[in-house]
């Protein structure tokens, strides 16, 4: 009875909700796209990045994925555009742009 939350929505009848509103799964929030909240968007200039990774831990939303000790593209599904990453980047590799864009 692991929870498939794609089957639960705000119109679900009571019989389709989980017991005690428990969720029998981890990390289901990934399906909720907080990127929609963004009013400013960080843009990643890969050419300027020296992979120091100072930006990755300061992201409140875990939206700077790291793989093999290298950061990847912003997770625009979840990035709220707070701008902390831009301020900590010593190399100007992150630029905040107005509006909710996907880095374009």
């Amino acid at each position, binding site marked *: 009875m692991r929870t498939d939350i794609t089957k639960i929505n705000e119109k679900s009848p009571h019989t389709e909700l989980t017991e005690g509103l428990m969720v*029998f799964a981890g990390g289901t929030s990934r399906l909720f796209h907080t990127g929609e909240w963004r009013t400013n968007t960080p843009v990643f200039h890969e050419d300027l990045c020296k992979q120091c990774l100072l930006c990755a831990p300061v992201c409140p939303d875990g939206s700077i994925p790291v793989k093999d000790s290298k950061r990847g593209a912003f997770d625009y599904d979840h990035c709220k555009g707070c701008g902390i990453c831009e301020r900590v980047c010593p190399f100007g590799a992150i630029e905040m742009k107005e509006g909710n864009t996907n880095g374009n």
Partner: protein
Amino acid sequence: MAIKERMSGNEAVAYAIRQVNPDVMPAFPITPSTEIPQMVSTYIANGEMDTEFIPVESEHSSMSAAIGAEAAGARSLTATSSAGLALMWEELLLAASNRMPLALTLVNRTLSGPININCDHSDGMGARDTGWIQIYAENNQEAYDNFIQAYPIAEDARVHLPIMVCQDGFITSHAVENIELLEDELVKDFVGEYEPEEYLLNPGKPIAVGPYSISNYAMEAKKNQEIALENSKEVILEVAEKFKKLSGRGFGLFEEYRTEDADYIMLLMGSAAGTAKQAVDEMREQGKKVGVLKLRVFRPFPAKEIAEALKNCKAVAIMDRCESYNGNGGPLGSEVTAGLFRHKVMIEAVNYIYGLAGRDFTVSDAVHVFEELADAVENGKEVEQFQYIRLR
């Protein structure tokens, strides 16, 4: 083979806890339930059981820890009385809404103020809308029997709700009386192992408990909880049936004592029921048609079944060991009359408040109540519909 013993209600419950040997018991002392964690601790100290005991710093924490332990996959329980239950109140609601089948053995004691350590049902009644199953005992035997049935009821997949097993403070908790105990192995088999399907400590299968819920889900969740409580009614009866096979002692949602042809019935809970039965026997010898309906299961409230049981009598005395300060009666008075009305049983129903904060209730008090009912019905005497017994 039943083991014939004599012990107090608290000893009986502690004995049952030892037999069930739950996984975790957080508890905090409060009179008159203190003996239960004391005795359990002693059993543990002597190696007679191996429950993990948590000596918490308050009752709020005992219920909180019990919820944590139960969510983690451990069979859990605690014990308390009076103010201890009141301090748990928020957590009682959470135990139920999180659907935790844990047990609480409540030794009923009045709530402050004034501070007083003696029995009434104001603690249990105060928790009546928290979503718990509540079962009340007349004596040490029932306190023992009810506790043994607690987990099979609470843990049933149709239920998954916490259960409160109640007995009267001092009156039964501290009174030594005869009792028949079951052998350890029989109890263990009856209660079985706790094997939850989902729990916090299931490696690789994480769960999340206790969400914030927006309105779109919260109302539906509450309805599901209500359905589970309704379901518990049939489970309580099924478990009682199995228990009868084991012990020979039968239980229902309530017990009807000499009510089949009774004109006047006294409806009450707990230790006073025995006193009322004694009055019934004495009055029956004089040809008076009286009987007792002893409510065992207060939650879920068996309104329909009570209405059915009372429909042929002329009058019922609804006995509350609790004041609810609504100007209209006690909790039982309100709920029973509502049940009668809804099921169109229009009989005289007088609500008596008795035994608050340890005020005694005697056989002659019960006789007086029956006589007053008879006077009202047979002589048309007007009876105050909501009154106190033994009030100076």
